[in-house]
Each structure stands twice: as C-alpha cells, then as structure tokens.
C-alpha cells in the first residue's frame, strides 16, 4: 500500500537540503568568527524558497489540502513528529525571513548604533534559526522512524542518515548555486573548502549507511531483513546502488578527495568541473535516497 508518494520524498529532500544548507553555512560562519556572513546570507536566501516549495508539496499531498491549517491550531497531540515538524519548519522559515528583513532593513537605518544592534539581533536569530534547522532535518527522519514500516523503524539510524544526507545535499546546493551564479559572495577558496567538508560529511554518511544495512540485517523486527533485501537485491536495488551508493556517496567522495586542497582557477577548469559534478551527484543522490527509503519502506509488508 503506497500512502506517501512523490510529493513526500521530494519534500523530505527539499526540507533536508534547505535546513542542511543553512546549518552548514551557519557553522562555517560561526567557526570562522562571523567572517563568512555572505555565505550564511546566500544559504538563508536559498533555504526559504526551498523549504516553502517543500511545504507546498506536503500540503498538496494531504487528502484534505485546505485543512492544512489544522496542523497549527490543534494542540492535543504535540508529541507527534508531524506536529513538531510543522512547527520546527515554521520557526525555521520565520527565523530566516526575519534575518532577511533585518539584513535588508539595515540599509535604511541611519545611525551606526542602530545598524549594529540590528546586526546583533540578526546574529542571535541566526543561532535560533540554526537550532530549528537541525530540528527540521532531524524531524524528516524521525517522521518516518515513528511508524510501523520496518525499513524506517527497525533501527535508530534513519534520522541520523537523513541528517547527514541533508547537510551533504545542503552544502552541494550552496556550491552548485555559487558555481552556476559565479557568486562573488562565496570565494573559490571557500567553495573548495566546502567541497572538502562535504567529503567528510559523505564519509560519515557512508559509515551510517553501512551500519544501517547491518543493523537491518541483524534486526529481529519482522520485515527488517526483507527490507534490506529489497534495497540491496530487490526492486529498489538499482536506485540504491546507482542512486544512493554511487551518486550520493562514492562518486562525490572520489571527486572531492582527488581535488582536496586544489583551487578553482576558473569557470570550466578541471577542478571546477569535478566539484560541480560531485555536488550535482550529491543532490540527485540525496533525492534518490529519500525515494529508496520512502518507497522501499512501503513496499515491505
């Protein structure tokens, strides 16, 4: 029985990418003491429409789309992952929108003190946004894990796997945008460093995926082993091996590591091409991971 179709797996991918891009940019900016704010701004501008498109898909998928507002007015079951996710998503997008307003509003403020205090408020809100970004990307996995589909709930790793994939696709999203847009806000040096970060995230994702598969195979839950077989040898195997293993993990890992430390000299250079290919592969692979898990989970009976 297929309850959740394309709108859901595309949504999980988009929400993960939006939250992941923002979280990654926030960490880069924070650890480099606020010197990478243009990157954070770019990720924020990317996150808002991406998350909104995802939400739109989510609403369209409802059996009663016009009742979507009830998610925000019913408070009787606040432990529900879907209820929490709705609010986390709202808080995340709201923080991002407020930051965009503050950043742009600063232009119209005359005094230096006022400008500084606006920047300080934006800075605080960027931290709140990061918290909700993490909760959003974790929720995309928890949503699936609190169900009775063995592929989703037999292990504790679906949220962790989705978080790593979200950050990986988020970084890739930022890189692709910067490369395509020839962005001046994000230097080529920073892009190389982001690609290196993505390689490490993908490495963590690879470990998660292997542990997830082993855990599924060892699980006593009815259907867990069957789910694993479906992924690695059944009808979802092409998606799993080509989409998840090759596109999301191996190809970008090889490309990123072989270009480790290299500078992007110019648009279209070998390194440019490698990082571009790697990032596009990560994004497509992330979508196919959501597809494999969401669809595969519902194929196991």
């Amino acid at each position: 029985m297929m309850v959740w179709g394309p709108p859901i797996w595309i949504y999980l991918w988009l929400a993960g990418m939006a939250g992941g891009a923002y979280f990654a940019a926030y960490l880069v900016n924070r650890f480099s003491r606020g010197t990478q704010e243009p990157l954070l701004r770019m990720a924020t501008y990317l996150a808002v429409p991406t998350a909104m498109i995802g939400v739109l898909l989510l609403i369209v998928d409802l059996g009663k789309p016009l009742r979507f507002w009830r998610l925000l007015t019913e408070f009787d079951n606040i432990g529900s992952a879907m209820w929490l996710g709705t609010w986390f998503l709202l808080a995340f997008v709201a923080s991002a929108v407020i930051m965009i307003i503050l950043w742009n509003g600063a232009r119209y403020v005359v005094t230096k003190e006022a400008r500084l205090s606006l920047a300080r408020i934006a800075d605080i809100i960027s931290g709140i946004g990061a918290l909700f970004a993490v909760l959003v990307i974790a929720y995309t996995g928890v949503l699936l894990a609190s169900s009775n589909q063995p592929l989703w709930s037999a292990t504790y790793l679906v949220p962790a796997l989705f978080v790593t994939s979200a950050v990986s696709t988020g970084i890739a999203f930022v890189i692709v945008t910067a490369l395509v847009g020839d962005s001046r806000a994000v230097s080529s040096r920073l892009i190389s460093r982001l690609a290196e970060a993505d390689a490490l995230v993908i490495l963590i994702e690879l470990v998660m995926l292997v542990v997830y598969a082993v855990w599924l195979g060892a699980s006593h839950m009815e259907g867990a082993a069957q789910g694993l077989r479906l992924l690695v040898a059944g009808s979802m195997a092409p998606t799993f091996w080509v989409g998840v293993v090759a596109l999301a993990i191996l190809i970008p890992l090889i490309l990123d590591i072989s270009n480790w430390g290299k500078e992007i000299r110019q648009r279209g250079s070998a390194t440019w091409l490698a990082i571009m290919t790697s990032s596009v592969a990560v994004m497509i692979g992330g979508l196919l991971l959501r597809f494999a898990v969401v669809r595969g989970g519902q194929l196991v009976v």
Partner: protein
Amino acid sequence: MAKAALVDMTKCMGCRGCQVACKAWNGNSGEETEFNGSYENPPELSASTWTRIEFYELERGWFFRKHQCVHCTDASCVEVCPTAAMHKEGEFVEVNKDTCIGCGYCALACPFDAVHREPPLGIARKCWFCLDRVQAGIEPACVKTCPTDALIFGERDDILKKAHARLDLLTSNGHPRAQIYGEHELGGLHWIYILDGYPSDFGLPESPRLATNSIVGQWIGGLIAAGVIAAVPFWLLFRRKRRLHEDEEFTRTGGER
C-alpha cells in the same frame, strides 16, 4: 467496563456476511474489483471497505481471518496523529471526520494495516466498532450478521473467559497450535482472535509494537548525527585558526560588514 468482540476463526466459514453488513450499516459503497485468482474480495481493506475476510491456504488446510481495525489500547495511529483527529472514544479508536487532514501518517503507523486514506474522501477511514450501535447498547453490524457465531460481542472480561474456554476445547481436540491473539498485545486489543495457528500464518504481526516507542531514541540519533557533523568536518576545517587568512579573502571578494 470495556467492551470487546471475539473473532473465532475456527468457526468462520468465509461467507463474508460481515463485509456486507459493515458496508450496509456504515453506508460504504461497493468497490469494482477484478478476479485475481482468489475468492477474496475486495483484494484489500480500503477507505470504504473496513472489514474483509482473508483466505489463507496453508498445507494443513484452508483458513480465514477477519481483518479490521483491532482497536488497540496503545494505538499507534492515535500516537502519531498531528491533529488528534484519530482519537480514543472510550476503549475504541475513532477518526474525527472534521479535523482529519488526510496526511496518511496513521495508515503508516498502524501495525495491522487497518487504516486507509484514499480518494474521494481523502481522510482516514476504518472500522469504528459501530460506535453508534454500541453506544445504543447493540452489537456491531458484523457481529449481528455472523451466522456461525464466529463473532461475539460483550464485556471484554467475559469475552476473554469465553476465548480461554474455547481455546481449552480446541487444544484438547486436536488443535495444538490454537491460540488467543489480542489479550495482551499493545496493551490489549478489542478484537480478540482465536487462531488455529501462528499469528504470522494469518498476516498478523507476531509482536506488534507501538509506532512511537523508539521516538526519543530516534530524535537523539538525529541530534547526535548533527553534533558529529558540526564537530568533525566543520570545526576541523573552519575553526578560528584560519581567521586572518579568511579575513583577507573576505575583503578581497567584496563582502560587506
């Protein structure tokens, strides 16, 4: 006192009168289906088919199992519902038709595949234990119609007593594998089965679990992953040591601050 129904599959003859009674009482339309090699019909539960008799051809014979929402005490569908439309009405589980948004989460959380969300209604639909009848003191439509008394309705305690008496009779009369299903599962079901075999022989989960029983660990798993990612790639690659260098880069690339 909690009510319950007994489903004695050793008395069922597969007439499917319960299916018709359910549709008739609840005003659910028939479904157009095609012959798929079995006399089972319709092929699955759906938003408009709330109960059906499943056929199981095992080596030792031909068996039936009535499939419907079993009204768990610890109901996964209730636990996951974001709008609390899926709720408890006493010991039974019911959908509020006005507040259900049709997200389908309950259908994926149910261990028994008993909740369905399909067009044209778009909201979750399932057996509601004929609450209108039960609250008026009469038995559910399917129980009423059952010609072999495979279905009995009553106080849950009495139902369990009858179930155990029947089980004793069965085990001492050549049905060593007979068992009761639903006495303790998920805090106790309100459709209690007598099965002549293992639950998995009849498409029932051997050890059904509450969908949300691992939710705290799932959240922690996701947050730990986020923490590891923050610490390993980002802290390692972007921490302050690069500050001066990046500052230069920053100025060169025309950032504003």
